[in-house]
């Protein structure tokens, strides 16, 4: 269903960090087709509007979304009460395409809320360990309070799951620095690795550059990009990044395509 939203019931709405919340939604009647990790939905807050939000979890037929309240719609969605309904359209866009990384080492690199779209990818990879090589998860955030899903990464680390923050408080005994500083501790063979990167654009560029430098092939660096979106169906024109319509050709694209486009200011 791509034209009008289907009603979904809010099963839970819990705080994730100080400024993000995680919603779990279940279809009231008809369900949308299955989402793949990396794809996104258009979430509709009644009477307020719609925004694109990646899926952050896909278990038991429910849709999980983690979002930060920064605009009218995202604030309204952050405030929905369990039992009420929101509208959902989707699935839209390209996914991470884990099957294409079969047999390769996996390197998941997340910055801030960029971990949300990577979470279902990690869960999928953990459920099929024989299909790929070593799984590395690198998580960066501004402060320890901004780290998402705090209880989960402990169970993820096989062989490596690292976390780092830009600014530490007195209680933080872990890494401090940008997420790429964790790369030295990850176990992967660069030319046999597929990387999955999501975070602020500056972090994506820095990570892409570093991974290329280490020998990960550009087309095996999969990055998730963000632009303004209104329709998600390729008709509104807002999400253009040069030749790409990101709702259709993205949000996940190979760094071989993304790098030259991200290098142009205000493209």
């Amino acid at each position, binding site marked *: 269903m*791509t*034209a*009008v*939203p*289907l*009603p979904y019931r809010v099963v839970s709405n819990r705080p994730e960090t100080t400024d993000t919340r995680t919603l779990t939604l279940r279809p*009231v009647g008809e369900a949308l087709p299955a989402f793949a990790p990396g794809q996104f939905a258009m979430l*509709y807050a*009644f*009477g*307020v*509007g*719609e925004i694109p939000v990646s899926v952050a979890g896909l278990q038991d037929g429910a849709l999980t979304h983690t979002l*930060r309240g*920064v*605009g009218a719609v995202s604030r309204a969605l952050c405030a929905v009460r369990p*039992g*009420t*309904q*929101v*509208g959902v359209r989707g699935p839209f866009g390209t996914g991470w395409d884990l099957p294409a990384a079969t047999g390769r080492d996996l390197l998941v690199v997340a910055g801030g809320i960029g971990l949300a779209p990577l979470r279902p990818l990690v869960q999928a990879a953990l459920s099929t360990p024989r299909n790929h090589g070593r799984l590395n998860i690198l998580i960066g955030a501004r402060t320890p309070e901004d780290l998402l899903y705090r209880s989960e990464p402990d169970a993820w680390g096989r062989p490596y799951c690292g976390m780092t923050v830009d600014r530490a408080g007195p209680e933080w005994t872990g890494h401090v620095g940008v997420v790429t500083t964790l790369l030295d501790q990850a176990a992967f063979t660069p030319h046999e690795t597929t990387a999955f990167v999501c975070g*602020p654009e500056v972090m994506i560029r820095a990570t892409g550059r570093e991974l290329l430098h280490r020998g990960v092939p550009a087309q095996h660096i999969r990055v998730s990009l*963000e*632009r*303004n979106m*209104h*329709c998600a*169906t*390729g*008709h*509104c*024109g*807002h999400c*253009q990044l*040069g*030749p*790409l*319509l990101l709702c*259709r050709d993205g949000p996940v694209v190979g760094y071989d395509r993304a790098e030259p486009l991200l290098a*142009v*200011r*205000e*493209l």
Partner: protein
Amino acid sequence: MPSATAPPDADSTACVLDLEGIEALVRELRARGRTVIGPTARDGAIVLAELESADELPYGWGVELEAGYYRMKRRTDAMAFAHSAGPQSWKNFLHPERARQWTADRAPDGGMTVRAERPEPTSFAFLGVRPCDLRAIQIQDRVMIGGRHRDDAYEERRTGAFLIVVECVEPGATCFCVSMGTGPAAQPGYDLALTEVLDDSGHRFLARAGTEEGAEILESLPHRPADDITRTRAREDVEAAAGRMGRTMPDVDLRALLAGTLDAERWNDVAARCLTCGNCTMACPTCFCTTTEDVTDLTGDHAERWRRWESCYDMDFTHLPGGSVRSTGRSRYRQWLTHKLGTWWDQFDSSGCVGCGRCIVWCPVAIDITEEAHALHQESLEPQAETKGEAS
């Protein structure tokens, strides 16, 4: 109907309609329940509006066009279609500037019901589609119904529309359809094609059908077999029009030109003139961008989603939590031009420009897309010239 000895370029349905044939055409289309839209003189411009009869066509009117300039002008003859593109295009009808997409109602228990807007069945007949504008319609078809997600409302309006192309015999000073390969002769996609001829033998139209419905309608009108004089005159007038284009595009691969000039100095030059008003995007027959508006009634339990045209020149167009991606006029003009001539190919496998010249005419500061393309082309040649200069 033409005999077997007709010239090889003759369409088997070719015939000649007099003015009474055109009157009968409008009557017949209306009798079939169609809303006939065509050019008419109104408010100092030739606009597209519903026609109740062929009398409303702008007989005897022409237009004078230049960058940032549009004036209607009395002709010395009674031609009805001797004017080039006006301020509107057919997208005003097929992809209207404001349309409701869905309505949603909230029940006391919090339940939500969403209903897609079912567009009223429309049955347009477009009379006087210029060949460049026929291409523009086909380009919007690719955008709206050519991909994975089809716009049902557009499809409904589009598939119900009957298209009568009128070939161009009087191009304007801002026209460049020859450069874009879209005119002035009719290309496939029409239901009927007409060529207006006015000479000592009278005022008449060479008509051809492109579809069965077109042939059926043509057959029902007062007509006579196409004579050689009319055929020849029609062909010569259209050929002459091709030689009278007011503008040209540089004769290069425009897609490659735009892909290779993202850092050009020319963007600063045009940005110093461009008001980022978005007039070019509103007048352009292919520009399709829209935004959405969500509204509720006073109870708050009835909501509507509306879609309206938006322009890539609007500051909010690329809004993200961190601010607008394209915050400068330079980047917004560059986006429009590179999309229109370049990245449109990547996205929809065609050019986004048909050479109608509307963006030139309706720019309040007379920015000329062809002049900008020529300037970018010149600048793309410069570094080579400088290197040569240094070497010598």
